[in-house]
């Protein structure tokens, strides 16, 4: 989780990613951010996040995103 929070903070240092759960709904992360984020996550965590995983439920909070990474790691 620490690793993920670090990636997210690099992208938007002004956002409190531990608290925020409306990253997509409030437009904090836009499509440019999401692509950069996926590229970083795919490398750091050795998982493959593909287009089908890009839904608000997976990206609205750091927690949801981490849950997705864990799910993909299990697969």
């Amino acid at each position, binding site marked *: 989780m620490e690793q993920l929070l670090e990636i997210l903070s690099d992208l938007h240092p002004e956002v409190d990613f531990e608290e925020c759960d409306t990253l997509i709904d409030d437009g904090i992360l*836009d*499509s440019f951010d999401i*692509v950069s984020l*996926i*590229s970083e996550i*795919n490398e750091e965590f050795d998982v493959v996040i*593909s*287009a089908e995983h*890009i839904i608000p439920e997976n990206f609205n909070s750091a927690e949801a995103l981490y849950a997705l990474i864990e799910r993909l790691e299990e697969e």
Partner: protein
Amino acid sequence: MLFTSYRFLAFILGLFLLYYVVPKKCQWPLLLVASYIFYAFAGWECLVFIGATTLTTYGAGLLIDQNHARQKNYLAEHKADLSKEEKKAYKEKQKNKRFALMVVCLVFNFGILAVLKYTNFVIANINGVLQMTGSENMLSFRNLLLPLGISFYTFQSMGYLIDIHRGKYSAQKNVFKFALFVSFFPQLIQGPISRYDDLEKGLFGQHAFDWQTVSFGLQRILWGFFKKLVIADRMLIGVNALIGDTDTYTGFYVFLGMLFYALQLYADFTGGIDITIGIAQVLGIPMQENFNRPYFSKGIKEYWRRWHISLGSWFTDYLFYPISVCKPMLKVSKFSRKVLGEKIGKRVPVYAASIAVWFVTGIWHGAAWNFVVWGLGNCFFIMLSQECEPLYEKFHARFAVKDKMWFKAFQIGRTFLLMCSLRMLDCYRDVPMTFRMFSSMFTDWNIGEAVTVGMWNLGLGVHDYVVLAAGTVILFTVSMVGRRGSVREMLAKKPAFVSIAVFGALFIATVLFGAYGMGYDASQFIYNQF
């Protein structure tokens, strides 16, 4: 059958009555019959194309869905006796089967769209090359049928298919229900491009008559007709005059044309969508909004999140993300980070996908180079604003103007003018001509002549300008009030006579000032042609 024809009014009124009279379980079949009758008015031959898209997408969706279920069952049954590698190999095999099915269906349907819509564009370009090489043998253009709303229903159906492939929801088992999803008549000709999971419940549910829902729907339809008939079709006269004579109407006239077209397009497209959503609401079917006060956007990225939302989100979900996060693109990204450095390399997949998306967005709007340049122009400014973000941040750290009203107004004005300038490519339909007309705004100083003489010779009289000015003020006011919530809901909370007075006045204004019976016919909606 035009939305603005008396025949259409009779059609929807008859449908509304029948819809709440027939048994509730017959409501969706009635809508299917009504949609096909509506579509048949565009020509019987068009039915073949929409039928082909419906059947192929239905079939492919079902097969993909069955494969998903088979995989799930097989893995559950063999949970204990398969190793992790065997499970992975099995999943990969099934995934490839599903992918192949999806690709065949996508190629077939986008193939139909491409052949019907772009064959003559390709021929024109080949002829251009032949002409340059001095050849006298030219290819002849084909007289191809372009079925009504083909871009809209193809995109909506293919979105469904991709969602089934992604396992987002289950396929529709009833072919007639699926046919209704593809052909639902209010949205068929100019969108919004709906998602199946958004529409399913409303479309196939049973709806009891609810006066408030029906009256809200009727109010929305009336508001759409007001925008279309009173503002857009009246403004069309001025726009046609200004872009029709490029020798006379240069300089300030071009600026005037830009503003006129901005108003016409907004009133036309949002008016059409109001009628669409209003009809669906009368039928008890909620539909997603396609606009969110786009002219109040403070930047180009924000503008595109608020204008033609359903098309933008379609491209984002089904084209931008699949391109930018696919394996080959991630490899390119890795390589470019090594070669170009972390900062620039990171942007390669995003920008490559953006260029592809905006090229397709351009060509979706029309088979001509002016639309391609328009699309790529939008892409250029989006990238530019992205690249300028560090500069903006420095500026805002130095000057505390971000929250000042005047600065927000400046941002809105800047975005509006930028979008108007790009849209000139849509007006003049010729790239060199557009650049010539654009530059004339800075070289031909004819504002005095334009204001005192020229603008009164565009076919618009004093009464037209008064109606347009009043209409614009009403549009602006409704937009401003709408920031606090639904205007109709606010009115409904007031005493009944307030609603009656407001919508009575709107009805009378539409009847009295609508652009019909005054020597010209209500025109097609601009987005019908896509």
